[in-house]
């Protein structure tokens, strides 16, 4: 029987937006999209698709579904994953969910996985989204679905109804096993996501992305409450103070510099 892998992906404001263009609406507590700069797939998410494609390269019979939640523009991220080689794309586009926190997001994604995409064997997410960098949606989906979760992996292989994954640790790697179905979050150590072949790009352009509303999943959006609320959002002020050490000779300047550094208790 075919293995079914679900990859969760997200679209984010381009992390390479020049700092001069980055603005936040402090009253609304949200980021103002930089004009003329298109959003991009969150860096780790295509790596998740790459992980799924590698499993397919190894075992053959694998169906890969791409799941996302957000506004219409997120379709681009799904299309990119389809062009890489994923089979189906699904988008939960419900304006009532646009301000969802990680908890609500995980609830909705888990519901879609359970209700619409079952049976499945593996859910892959990025280790974190590169906009808010919280890194909790993957584990929370596992929590909601009651599945084992392996985070921050650099490789994942499937055999005999279980996964073998290598986790990235601060001082090395750790190989773990978990029974399927499971949730895995991938890190950049896995490698670059593949470049889509043109034929797949053209095929992906023709593929339909299925759109759901919360109610399609049997959810009542009003019953879903954020658990994390933003108190304030602002661009931190960076202050740089520069002091020029004056002196007639290099030796004198060095002497004074050392003195200042000692005063500041830096050496």
């Amino acid at each position: 029987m075919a293995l079914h892998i679900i990859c969760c992906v997200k679209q984010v404001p381009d992390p390479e937006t020049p700092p001069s263009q980055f603005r936040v609406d402090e009253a609304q507590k949200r980021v103002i999209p930089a004009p003329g700069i298109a959003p991009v797939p969150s860096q780790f998410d295509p790596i998740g698709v790459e992980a799924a494609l590698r499993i397919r390269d190894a075992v053959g019979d694998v169906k890969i579904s791409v799941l996302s939640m957000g506004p219409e523009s997120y379709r681009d991220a799904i299309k990119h994953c389809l062009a890489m080689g994923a089979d189906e794309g699904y988008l939960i586009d419900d304006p009532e969910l646009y301000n969802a926190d990680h908890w609500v997001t995980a609830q909705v994604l888990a519901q879609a996985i359970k209700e619409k995409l079952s049976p499945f064997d593996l859910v892959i997410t990025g280790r974190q989204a590169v906009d808010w960098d919280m890194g909790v949606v993957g584990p929370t989906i596992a929590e909601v679905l009651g599945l084992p979760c392996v985070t921050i992996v650099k490789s994942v292989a499937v055999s005999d109804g279980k996964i073998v994954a290598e986790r990235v640790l601060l001082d090395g790697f750790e190989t773990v096993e978990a029974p399927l179905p499971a949730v895995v979050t991938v890190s950049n150590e896995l490698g670059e996501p593949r470049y889509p072949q043109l034929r797949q790009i053209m095929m992906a352009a023709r593929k339909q992305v299925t759109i759901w509303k919360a109610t399609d999943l049997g959810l009542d959006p009003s019953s879903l409450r954020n658990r994390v609320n933003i108190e304030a959002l602002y661009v931190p002020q960076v202050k740089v103070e520069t002091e020029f050490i004056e002196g007639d000779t290099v030796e004198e300047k060095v002497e004074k510099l050392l003195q200042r550094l000692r005063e500041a208790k830096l050496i």
Partner: protein
Amino acid sequence: MVREVTVRWGRGRLILTGLLFFVAVALIPLASALAVVAASKGMGEATREVFFNVASWARILVYGATGIILLVLSYGPASRVRLWLIGKGERRWDRPWERARFFLLYGIGQGRLPNDFYAGLMHLLIFWGWTFLFIGTLMLAFHDDIVEFLEGHVYLGYSLALDLAGIAAAVGLGMALYRRYVWKPPKLRLGSLWDDVALLWLMLAIVLTGFVIEGLRLGMTELQGATIDVGDGLVTDSDWAYWSPVGFLIGKAAVKAGASQGLMELLHRSLWWFHLAMATGWVAWVGYGKLSHLLLGSANIFFRRLSPTGAALAGTALAPITDFETAERLGAGYLRDFTWKQLMDLDVCVRCGRCEANCPAYNTGKELTPMGFLQEMKAYLTKMGPQLIKARRRGEETKEETPVAGGVVSFETIWDCVTCGACEYQCPFFIEHIPKLMDMRRYLVMEEARMPPTAQATLMQLEQRGHPWRGTQLTRTTWLEELKGEGIDVPLFDGKQEFLLWVGCTGALVERNVQVTKALVRLLKEAGVSFGVLGAEEGCSGDPARRLGNEYLFQLQAQQNIETFKAKGVTKVIASCPHCFNVMRHEYPQLGGRFQVFHHTQVLAQLVREGRLRLKGVSEVWAIPTTYHDPCYLARHNDVIGPPRELLVAAGVDLVEMGRCRKGTFCCGAGGGHMWVEESRGRRINHERTREAAATEARLIAVACPFCLQMLEEGAGSVKEAQEKGMAVLDVAELVEKSVVFSRLVPLERV
């Protein structure tokens, strides 16, 4: 104030080379004409017997053999044409007059040969010597069998001309043998025993035996004394012998050595047959191997790619893919994905090595050699072709053992190319190297998604962000805001301005290049040019995508720009990047975008000529020795050579040329998308070029391309020779800015 400006090499060398070649070409006919004039007093009855001293049936044999020889000769090309037809169709016979003109210039005229002076002269001597000897033989046949015209002073002139032609051929062949045996330049490394060495010896033997035969004939006839009857009512005269100087010397020597009439007769007769056998053998050889360049090379020049926009080289304007939806394969992965002309190119190559000797990739220790990959493909075509034809005839699906792209021609070879066009510019037969490599890139990228990681990152970046400069801190409008701070307002183009200034991604998004953009804008403002910019609406021109093999992305980007241009009513474009300039000038018309495109050096030169930019008497760059690095896409691909030099002279710098300049320029290493592709093999191309610049007296390197600026500036900071001299790199526009009198105060924050 006018100043003497030193231009070393450059134009002077070109003129000298051209003159020498003209003299060499004109020498033989000129000498014969002179001879005819000189001989025009009383030698009315001078002539010779044609089949002298050989059996009368020799005539029948010679004509009979000619038929067989021609059959043997034509089998060679015919067997190769079958192989070419494995490839796809391509129309190469439109505009026949233009093709004929090219053939005259570069086929008969051998216009590409002076690029290598020694080899060019050598080839020219052999070519013209051989051609005259061949025509001479035909004339003799005509004289003997149709109308006797080789009589009197015509005959004597003819004798002298052929002797001179023989000398020319012998000298040329001697030069060639010297080159093969003694000099051994590295570019001849692919020479083969039969094709290169044996052929030369054969030709030399033909010329020398010809001379000896002539000498013996003279020894037996004209040199035997005053007027003697040699039978058939023919008489000879010893005075005539001087008109065959080489034969005269040999005959004289034979007579002096005391050779008897009988011995000379025997020697003459046997050598005559030997000479005939070698000469006919040579003619049959013309259908095969290297010698087939007489036919195939000529045809290749005739079939060269002609661009509707007048692009200089085949690599200047790559052919568009028009059938994305239906194509069996995108780009060229296997033999049958190439066109017949691309396969024909393989057979035309004679391994002269000019491409290789000038290739920046090969000469910095990379895998690519233009000559080498053609030969690899040729060997594979020869091996695989007949099987493919057989399979096709049986109606079977044709299967090739290995792909050409990434198999026969290595992945590294395909990705090493910087598309500078040096190979194409050097090739005497107009072989189109770049389109082949680019078609293979297209296959690797679009069909297999195989490319260097940095190329992949660049294509992703182009797709997602519409420019190649990952991590830039600037936006396309940052520089506009900064100029506004200086009090310079640049309008957005809305159809009211004459020119659109196409800033380019690099000119807007890279700090160093922004300075050039600003300098250019200040100059255009000063001269009162009416222009506008697209600001945030500008996108990538598409050149990097196309040259990195993603034709699809190129067409999307180009079409987007063409639509924007048309919507805004753009007719004239000024581009400061030669790559944008090239793609808009030659490749946008393929997609229906016809605009007048100028490079900023062309516009600035015009403004200086018209006096709209006034120059200081003595500027801060006055008399600084400066060398100009020709960007490949400006000089070689687009023939823009004069305007930047005009500007440098106007700016008052002391112009010093590098050895490789103008159309013979050496790439900075950033063409063909390589600005963003890691140079992981061999030495760095930009360091090689910087070293060359540092070897001149120049303290400044002037450039006219944003990539060259970055590459050479990096080189000037890393190459020891340049560091020691403290070399700086400036765009021509920046140099001009330093030398122009501004009518209003412009804060120049830089020195």
